[in-house]
């Protein structure tokens, strides 16, 4: 029985230049180089990408959806952050 399992990596792929890297999924690999190679074979077999990032999953800190209240509510009542909050005379164009 192996003593150590390959760690889990998260895979992010830029599908073409001009677009951001997007989370594609995860995989197991012994190290970053192998994670990149495996990511190529698992997630880009049909030209789905021009650039790949891999990050060991344990290095990601995620917010907890159960605390979404405290986390995201403060933005909800700040209507003045939107352009529609401001009243302008009808004659004003292009603003």
């Amino acid at each position, binding site marked *: 029985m*192996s003593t*150590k399992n390959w760690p889990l990596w998260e895979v992010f792929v830029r599908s073409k230049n001009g677009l951001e890297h997007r989370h594609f*999924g995860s995989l197991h690999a*012994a190290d970053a180089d192998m994670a990149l190679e495996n990511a190529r074979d698992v997630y880009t077999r049909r030209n789905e990408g021009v650039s790949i990032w891999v990050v060991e999953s344990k290095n990601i800190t*995620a917010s907890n*959806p*159960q605390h979404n209240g405290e986390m995201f509510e403060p933005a909800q009542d700040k209507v003045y952050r939107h352009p529609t909050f401001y009243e302008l005379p009808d004659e004003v164009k292009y603003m």
Partner: protein
Amino acid sequence: MSEEQIKNLEAQFEARIARDEKIEAKDWMPEKYRKTHIRQMSQHAHSEIVGMLPEGNWITRAPSLRRKVALLAKVQDEAGHGLYLYSACETLGISRDELYEQLHSGKAKYSSIFNYPTVTWADMGAIGWLVDGAAIINQVPLCNTSYGPYARAMVRVCKEESFHQRQGYEIMIKLANGTPEQKEMAQDALNRWWWPSLMMLGPTDAESIHTEQSMKWKLKRKSNDDLRQQFIDQTVPQADLIGLTIPDPDLKWNEEKGSYDFGDIDWDEFWQVVKGHGPCNKERMNARVGAWERGEWVRDAAMAHAEKQQQRKEKQAV
């Protein structure tokens, strides 16, 4: 948490799904939802992985380079499908090792169809055409399932499946239009794979235990019998088109229903194979477990190499 609080959370949870909201990995979920998803997703992943074995059997003996690259690419896709699904399943808090252990110990199931042998090249045609065809019918509705990671994995899987079915049907077309021996080979493959393919869509609705809950969670959108009917109605004309005969004397177009009537399925055979008594259950598990065990030193070596590289890097940094 009190029982009432849990009831409350459960009600909110069900309402979210009913509103077509997706559930993500870190969201609160009922234990039953988590367990059911681990079971279904891992079964699905195991099927992709074991499903490589019957086709892998023919890669070295494909009749032309064109057929060989196509089959190789198809089998590689199946490996990919297994990996998408395993990683989606791991988001529910089960490790890859536990998942493999469940497969290798026989605790987890995989699709029974892969316990049938692939005895001629025509079986590569029949599998792509019928088995991948039935899989697509099963899988397309899952692209909208409630668990986000599963739905996203299924979108990717479904995109890749249509090539699988086409390459299989193309093999059947070629054989059906070939010499009398080739045509006979195609017909023989259809004869052997037809009924197991129908069984692949699951037990009849009357015997299906999980359906109601699964419908609610969008793990299922149509009943097994509806999916089976859909498969039959779309496949029969494809067989007609290439001059092959569906091996069912009771198969008949029903004008009134606008679909085909078909003969009785031998469910005893289905349950026998599920219970481990199919023609290749043992062979498949031996191949799978053997590959895992023989690969152990490679996995260990890769890990040792990675650690050495890491130590070297740290030393240089000092």
